């Protein structure tokens, strides 16, 4: 048993729902109790979809157990097919139905339904949402793909590609897709199909007609892409175009497989991020310490952008998905830090508090954590709340995505000259910690609970000094001086000073130690 308050991923059948909801004319018959219908609200409320997810839940009850749950499943499947007339259905069990072992696959096969039935085996007690989405997509592709298609010869026609991975409830999938299509249009590459988002089961049958695949979200599409590679000899582009550098590599990769000239796409004049980052106002971004956590793909991309495109220092990097942990480990090594692979948000909270970053990039969970700790934050990865499904076009991928990322990450930070003013006029009553950055009053950092000592009014600190966790002692005077350092660098100053004191073997941190440490860390 694992104790959890918040979870990064839902159960695997929610992953299957993300695929089913993204597609058209596909229906999901899910053997599940009534409470599992909550999952509909993920799509209708969080993503604001105006349509019900195409899911029929059997909603069996305790009194049905051991009697007619199998019958209930068959009735539900029959009614769903008659009412919604899908081109195909997927069938499966949620965690509870898995225990009663009704075998939805066998039951539906025995019914002779008038459409293809794709059975799903999603072990609820071992796997999670992203795995469920990947497995569902793979099964759909494997079952429906017409293996007899013969690709037309390449000569005299544009290259054709499948874009794989976008689903319902994905972080900015809708907008990323627009950017990818733009790039492909500039390269003269035709889109054979996009899946799961917007594809019908009939569309999937002709998936073999493409010359190659683009794996946009490996968490969802990698499994299917590997099967397609084997079955149809379709190579895959696996560069995820998040960030300017990655977008350039992506364009090069696509151009190479398509035999196209990359220049038109590389010369996209709407790419503003490189200049925004080089302009002098951005100098203050230099070596800002950033903590990154999310799904593997987005976390790795964020770390690269942070290092190479914004000049940040990555002080923490991790992901909640074990399946793709290898990529995160490799990137963490490049950042010179230990990766954090966990789905326990309390462990993430501890790591963030210990790292005392100046910016957190994460999921909705890290946003809550950062809010509690009073650290600026931007969201880079699912799971996200309703406010992270914006009405406006807001991609992460392509050059426009990089522009969006620049704005989103820089916005929560205190701006260049303001930073100096805050430092110089610390005593100004309007520069209280609670005021935060002047351009977003509503999001100003609050007192951090874990930093209760440093955040408490100086008067409240018991004399003569407080023992820190590791036994170092701050004198009242030094503690008061620390208060004069602006909140957004105070965590760093405290940590540096304590490290310095520990290294020097000083038992007490007084004014002297504070300024010795400042001199020591001067760069």
């Amino acid at each position, binding site marked *: 048993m694992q104790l959890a308050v918040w979870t990064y991923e839902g159960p695997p059948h929610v992953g299957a729902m993300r695929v089913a909801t993204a597609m058209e004319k596909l229906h999901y018959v899910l053997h599940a109790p009534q409470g599992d219908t909550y999952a509909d*609200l993920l799509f209708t409320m969080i993503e604001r979809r105006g349509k019900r997810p195409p899911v029929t839940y059997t909603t069996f009850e305790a009194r049905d157990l051991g009697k007619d749950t199998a019958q209930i499943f068959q009735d539900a499947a029959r009614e769903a097919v008659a009412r919604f007339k899908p081109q195909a259905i997927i069938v499966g069990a949620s965690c509870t139905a898995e225990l009663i072992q009704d075998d939805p696959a066998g039951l539906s096969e025995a019914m002779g339904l008038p459409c293809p039935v794709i059975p799903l085996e999603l072990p609820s*007690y071992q796997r999670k949402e992203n795995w469920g989405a990947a497995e569902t997509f793979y099964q759909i592709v494997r079952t429906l793909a017409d293996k007899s298609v013969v690709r037309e010869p390449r000569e005299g026609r544009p290259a054709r590609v499948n874009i794989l991975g976008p689903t319902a409830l994905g972080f900015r999938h809708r907008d990323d897709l627009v950017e990818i299509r733009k790039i492909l249009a500039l390269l003269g590459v035709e889109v054979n199909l996009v899946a799961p988002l917007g594809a019908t089961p009939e569309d999937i049958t002709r998936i073999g007609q493409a010359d190659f695949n683009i794996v946009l979200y490996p968490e969802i599409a990698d499994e299917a892409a590997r099967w397609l590679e084997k079955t149809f000899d379709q190579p895959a582009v696996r560069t995820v175009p998040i960030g300017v550098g990655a977008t350039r590599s992506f364009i090069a990769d696509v151009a190479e497989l398509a035999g196209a000239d990359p220049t038109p796409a590389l010369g996209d004049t709407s790419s503003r991020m490189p200049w925004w980052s080089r302009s002098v106002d951005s100098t203050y971004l230099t070596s800002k310490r950033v903590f990154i956590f999310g799904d593997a793909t987005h976390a790795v991309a964020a770390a690269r952008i942070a290092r190479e495109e914004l000049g940040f220092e990555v002080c923490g990097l991790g992901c909640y998905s074990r399946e793709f942990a290898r990529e995160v480990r490799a990137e963490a090594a490049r950042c010179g830090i230990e990766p954090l692979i966990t789905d326990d948000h309390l462990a993430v909270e501890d790591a963030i508090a210990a790292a005392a970053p100046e910016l957190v990039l994460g999921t909705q969970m890290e946003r809550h954590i950062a809010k509690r700790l009073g650290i600026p934050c931007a969201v880079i990865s699912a799971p996200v709340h309703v406010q992270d499904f914006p009405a406006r076009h807001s991609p992460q991928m392509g050059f426009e995505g990089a522009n969006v990322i620049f704005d989103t990450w820089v916005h929560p930070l205190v701006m260049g000259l303001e930073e100096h003013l805050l430092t110089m006029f610390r005593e100004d009553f309007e520069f209280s910690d609670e005021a935060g950055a002047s351009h977003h009053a509503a999001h100003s950092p609050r007192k951090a609970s874990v930093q209760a000592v440093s955040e408490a009014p100086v008067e409240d600190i018991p004399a003569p000094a407080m023992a820190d966790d590791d036994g170092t002692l701050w004198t009242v005077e030094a503690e008061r001086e620390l208060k004069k350092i602006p909140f957004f660098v105070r965590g760093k100053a405290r940590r540096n000073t304590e490290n310095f004191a520990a290294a020097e073997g000083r038992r007490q941190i007084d004014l002297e130690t504070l300024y010795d440490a400042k001199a020591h860390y001067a760069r």
Partner: protein
Amino acid sequence: MSALDILDGCAAELARDTGPAIAPARPVLRERGQREVFCGLTGIIWLHRKMQDAFFLVVGSRTCAHLLQSAAGVMIFAEPRFATAIMEERDLAGMVDAQDELDRVVNRLLERRPDIRTLFLVGSCPSEVIKLDLAKAAQRLGAVHMPRVRILNYSGSGIETTFTQGEDACLSALVPVMPALAADAPKELLIVGSLPDIVEDQFLRLFAEMGIAKVGCLPARNARDLPSVGPGTRYLLAQPFLGETAMALEGRGAQRIEALFPFGVDGTSDWLRAAGEAFGIDRDLTEQVIAPGRARAARALANLRPQLEGKRITFLPDSQLEVPLARFLQDELGMELVEVGTPYLHRAHLARELDRFGPNVRLSEGQHLDRQLDRVRADRPDITVCGLGLANPLEGEGLTTKWAIELVFSPIHGFDQAADLAELFARPLRRRDMLEI
């Protein structure tokens, strides 16, 4: 021709109710099929706020944890007093003893949260299906942790409970540990059903003014500070979904005071008057105490009545609050009830409410979702009360909706909330008229 006649499979299921409480019997449309409702675990989201020393540990699956977090949504930022012990393959395959695992999780939790005084082990579908005995676990762990922590159990599983029935199950679990009220003790009043603190305080003030000295609340704000119960207890239900709790209380000798539920001017007056009568309070005094609240509520409702009068409303089954709320909207705001669906109809507790319904109200119990949505589309009510999963899809079809969950999370009982309650229905209609896009 009514929508019922034209829709496949509906007319046939009209059954004459033969329950003793309702005379003459009112036809109830009983349906079975897909139900779109939360399970009883959802009650934890308000119960853990109400009982400030209690912690709710769901013994379930990743689905249960995900449900709680999705239903709680953005409402909770602080570390909540609930969590899920997620069962894994090892627990099911018998590689570890699930009871041992539970001990480990509970011990760790109680170590980390010394503020917990009452711990509820909450059963889920998976724990029920594998017959994990949580009563036994509660007993064993209780023996270790009492007196510091009392450990109780109930089931909020979706195979047994629907949404608010979770609160019913939780409160029933509290009844056996309520202290005994001596058989010869003077009569005491007990308010049953969790109310927002502000509403509870309003009611307590009114009862005090009426001269009812001893009034207890179940649940109490502090779960270790439960009111007494015994033959001298007269209880008032504040919520219509507490059938099991009522039975448990009667099992300990308590008697129910029959009344309308305290929604709107009529409901609240009837509820308070019934208590007054049960305690032999002078009628004039009761009237004097409730007069100011009645007048305030009536004034406030008068402002909203023009917006709601004549508007047609359908309730999809959700919280079991449907019947009393429909009565309020019909009687006090002049709305027309098209269909009132409820997951479960407690005929005895709702008898007085149902008596108020006009003859053409379609009353339905249980659910066959797609057929019910067909009826909504055929009826085209002005407003449909439904769950979160259905609201935007219905809006997408041009039907105005009200999320039912807000009715459970907002203060809506009593005189001073009557207008707030009406406003919850008026706002979506007003918004529909305001928007020009």
